[in-house]
């Protein structure tokens, strides 16, 4: 199999993930989109590893790490989303805006 096919697929996956992150409001969906992006990375790594065959299986090793990492991230992410839900009653990422800049400057001078 030529190298280009998995790479293309990875790019596609990554872009899909980026789109999801930017466009979806639901925090859970955003987390899933991240998974897509990380999987694109994994695909890349494995493909390159297979292409390189350097004997160390560096790419595959890193892919394993990435999977672990993704799991940890999702774990923490879900905890934060849960906290968000507890505070706000929903899990929409773009409506949590308590911390935005206050529009008018509360200063009497200057």
């Amino acid at each position, binding site marked *: 199999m030529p190298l280009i096919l998995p790479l293309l697929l990875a790019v596609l996956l990554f872009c899909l993930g980026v789109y999801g992150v930017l466009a979806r409001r639901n925090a859970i969906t955003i987390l899933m989109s*991240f998974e897509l992006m990380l999987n694109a990375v994994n695909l*890349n790594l494995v493909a390159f590893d297979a292409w390189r065959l350097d004997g160390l299986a560096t790419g595959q090793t890193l892919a394993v790490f990435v999977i672990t990492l993704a799991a940890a991230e999702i774990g*923490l992410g879900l905890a934060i989303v849960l906290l968000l839900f507890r505070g706000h009653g929903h899990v929409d990422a773009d409506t949590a805006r308590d911390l935005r800049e206050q529009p008018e400057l509360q200063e009497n001078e200057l």
Partner: protein
Amino acid sequence: MTMTWTDWQAIAVPLVLALGAITVLLADALWRTGSKQVRHTVITLITGAAILFGLAFIAVQRNSVKPAFCRPAVEGPAQCSLVFEPLTVGLWAVLLIGGLGVVGLSAYRLLDVDIPVGEYHFLLLSALTGATVLAGARDLATVVIALEVVSLPSFAMVALRRDRRGSEGALKAFLVSVLSTAVMLFGISYLYGVTGSLYLQTIVTRLPAIDPDLRRVAFAAGLFVIVGFGFKIAAVPFHGWLPDTYAGAPVEVAAFLAVVSKSAGVGGLLVLVTFGVAPSGSSLRTVVCILAALTMTVGNLAALRQAEAVRLLAWSSIGQVGFLLAPLAVGDAQAAVGYLAAYVVVTLGAFGAVAVVQRHRPAGLLTDYRGMVRSEPGLGVALVFFLVVLAGLPPGLAGLFTKFAAFQAVLDAHIGWLAAVMAVNVMIGLAVYLRWIAELFRLPADDPFSVDIENPAVAVISTCAGAAVVLSILPSTLFALVT
């Protein structure tokens, strides 16, 4: 592969920090009988001991070079995953001092009552572990893992108060961070594909020799890696999360983010730029220069109209990182670490002062500081001094000379435009801090801030002030961190 004594030595500090983290967690979980005060004190002591071990270690070993987890390379010198060397010493010193300062700021009666002490210190030590590893990391896998070990506990710390603001801040930081990790990993995957290795040593030797067709790929990959760090250190345009997160987090955690987390990111980027993906002459360095210019300008400008102390510090920390990126972009580790050290000391002090005021005046507005040089002369003068150091004007010579070194680094690299942008930003930065200083000096104040300041806060702030004064008189100390 077996662990040698050198390997153990090299990872001694992260290891002790990690062990300390576990100890703290276990102690807090298992020992429920003691009073809150005693538990807090014990935990603080354990945490402090772990960090102090690290400081003692680097003080003793500061001149040695200890490559760890090495394997002989096919071509060139051995490939190592973690190296203990002067640069590592400098970064660790900064990180550990910053961590110690945050621990001091979190001492009993200072830390918010809602925050669970054990978890807090556990997360702090964990992040510090990651930070130290990151500063010594010399392969991309270690970098990624270490970075995540720094980041994830940090978000947890932000959310530790479990309120609306905390969760929102944590979410923003988390989402941005995860995106950055994904982008960086994506870049790493291509870097691996292009060079066939994750060792920085190997990458740097192979990059110039790669197929010209792959140059663009390599460039994009490097860019992604740098951008990933850009998120971490909140370089513009990846900075959006930072002010919100600082504002949402407890002040101590904001201090932690500004000091340890940011230093870790800068350290990691420094390692990457100087040892790996962006050898001198690479256009990736230009990218970092652009990032530096953008970051300092936007950070300072946005700080110009802030009404809240923490937000002002948040934006100004973005501006400071911009200045930091300048010597970093030209690979001047000495200037960058020196800058980082001065920044860490005074930022800690400033956050300490803010923490004290914010405890009694939760609104955290700049106007709360009105007339403080008269009503709270010690705290007021110290805060003025910190701000002056941040602005880089006398008497804050620590700030002045680190900026000076940054200018020198940039000019020696013949990047005139960046130097000009920096000069303009010195001015904008001064305008930012002057507003605050003006409030401190303004008399008469309707309702001047005056309280009995908690002893630990006095200790931390005066230590920071003392350190800043010493560094101002002997700025060479700053540049001796990396020799």
